[in-house]
């Protein structure tokens, strides 16, 4: 028997003895071993919807777009991310220009995206497009470095997002629509550009948005980013910028 069949056989044999139901305890010390309370859940069906049971009790996500926007801004602030809400793409350009100037960025990385491309216009530094096949090839030929090195040398990564989650202040990025896996985590600064329509109330709603967009072919990586990278490993003291970005900007346009 191969390992797969052996493990599955063990699991099936183990589960042939029924155990307590979901909210039941094995109970006080009975002295008589197992005390089965209920039959195991029906097999092959989808009877248990934990989310439906939990939805009313989880942290609030806001009922109206205004509430969601306010909650998102509040959560991002608590997470030590920087949140800007600007009226137009031109205002966003100005904002990014001043951030780049202030921090003296030499090179920023970006990817093809209907919001990212226009916001970069006029930025006072070099740019590196991560998903341009020609650029990747040229980089390889000219500098004999891999695209990883080029990205590592960038001062900031600028991406779009799949959704913004009001409930937790999270940004959902994916490998297909946000410039791959590394762009949002390797450079020391991450700038996210989004529109207010992308704000959803809860994590569950973000999954719904995701399925609407990608149907069954989900991207190979999906990541909820909640604030700048952090650690508390040294004496449980919070430090930002452990391995991922030290700074996270969210620019909401419109």
């Amino acid at each position, binding site marked *: 028997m191969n390992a797969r069949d052996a493990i599955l056989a063990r*699991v099936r044999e183990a589960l042939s003895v029924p155990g307590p139901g979901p909210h039941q305890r094995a109970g006080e010390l009975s002295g008589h071993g197992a005390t089965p309370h209920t039959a195991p859940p029906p097999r092959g069906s989808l009877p248990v919807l934990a989310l439906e049971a939990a939805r009313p009790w989880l942290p609030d996500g806001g009922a109206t777009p205004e509430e969601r926007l306010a909650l998102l801004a509040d959560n991002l602030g608590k997470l030590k991310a920087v949140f800007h809400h600007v009226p137009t793409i031109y205002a966003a350009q100005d904002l990014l220009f001043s951030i780049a100037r202030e921090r003296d960025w030499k090179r920023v990385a970006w990817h093809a995206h209907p919001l990212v491309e226009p916001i970069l216009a006029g930025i006072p530094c070099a740019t590196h497009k991560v998903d341009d096949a020609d650029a990747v090839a040229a980089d390889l030929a000219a500098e004999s470095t891999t695209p990883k090195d080029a990205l590592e040398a960038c001062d900031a990564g600028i991406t779009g997002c799949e959704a913004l989650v009001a409930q937790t202040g999270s940004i959902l990025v994916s490998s297909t629509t946000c410039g791959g896996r590394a762009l949002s985590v390797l450079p020391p600064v991450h700038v996210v550009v989004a529109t207010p329509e992308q704000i959803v109330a809860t994590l569950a709603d973000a999954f719904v948005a995701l399925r609407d967009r990608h149907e069954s072919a989900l991207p190979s990586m999906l990541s909820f980013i909640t604030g700048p990278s952090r650690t508390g490993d040294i004496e449980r003291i919070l430090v930002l910028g452990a391995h991922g970005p030290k700074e996270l900007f969210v620019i909401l346009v419109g």
Partner: protein
Amino acid sequence: MRSPFIPHAAPAMPPHPSPIAAPHPGSHADPSGDAERGSHGAKKRFLHDAREYVRDTDHRAFLRRALAGYYTTRDGQKARYRDWEHARDAANLAKWNAVNRLDEMLVRFADAFEVGGGKVHWARDAAEAREIILGIVRAAGAKAIIKSKCMTTEEIHLNAALEAEGYGVVESDLGEFIQQLRGEPPFHFVFPCMHVRRGEISKLFEEHLGSAPTESPEELTMIARRYMRRLYVEADVGITGANFLVAETGQISITENEGNARLTAALPRVHVALAGIEKCVERLDDLAVLLPMLATAGTGQPITCYNTLYGGPRAPGECDGPQEMHIVLLDNGRAAILADPEQRDSLQCIRCGACLNVCPIFKNVGGFTYGTTYQGPIGSVITPHLRGLGDWNHLSQASSLCGACTDACPVRIDIHHHLLHNRRNAVRAAPNRLERMGHRMFAAVAARPLLFAAGGALFRRSLWLLKKLRLPLLRDWIASRDLPQAPARSFRDQWRHRALPAVARSRPATAEGDR
């Protein structure tokens, strides 16, 4: 500075030479010599280490200070739930559902994951898992391996196995990296180096990385950050764990704060994830419940900084990511826990570490004393199963049964009752003849009033002697406690000559003489 990927001169072996592989699941009372020797050694070591740690009041105060912030932030975060207790019920439901249909979940997960282009491997025990991962590393022609935090790799002692074959492997999680440099296993399975002071870390970095001494946690973190940057780019294999396996979509979910797991799964050519079979959940939607609760219970955050789902290697049209992705599904004793319906719910554990953070025993004896991969109350429940019951049952005695762990558990595992179950099972497996004899003797005496009175009189007069004699059974008890003062008269005597209120006196004294 030497290359970080060259194995350490002294391989980082765990200081506690614990039996590496668990005995074959299902054979609890494994009578092999290993388990027997381990049994005695592990208990002795526990008692010895506990005594040392408990006396170190500085250390205890340090742990308490480190955890003080956790209690405040956790409570603040719990208050944002509209009802934390109901949310716990739902989290319990999600994991109960997956654990009680585990075979179905595993098959669905594996099929869906392979559709995404990844490869699924199955490992019955630690040795098999090590061999599979070594095979992947060899086939990849790996020169450098980077790892993100994964307790399951600690469970199978993966780093030692990789280093024995000459592969250098660097832990990228800050806490795990510090522990790797110290040559110690994690102290706490969520906060690996919570026992280490910043001065010690500064010295460690000075010695190994040649950095300047500093007392600032921020600077220390930046030293590790700078050191690790190149390694992510250079490594050709990245090893991670998985917090959840989503059966519906065939994705693994990784929870972290630092971003190191994301880099580990983004830059190397090959991504290997190791996960216990119990990590399944049925739906993607279940994560909308479990991800926030894992963070709130574990660290007091609304959700951790990065919660990432991986469905396979780089897909066509994506601009980066590994070319290969492997997942190793590990049993290693988990099916044995599943086979015990009474303790089946302990497989619902999502390893948040909340039960350690609130445990009075953990706070006093520290993480190393347990000598296990998983410390604290949940470790005391599952380790006897993972490593053989006779071996690790003493851990179930290391509990005040206060139930703080059960209250803290976000998925409602009945932890402290399981500790009682383990005690009962151990007594059944190996009855304590001396204790049984003692109980029989007491029963014989207690059933004979005259003998009981005579025994009581003797005991009252000789109580002081017990302290002097230092009898082996009483010695440990007396060492830290005062014996009570013996009363001059027995209870029965006092009862007989009691001054009762008028009401009681008017009744016939039925209780006269008994007990």
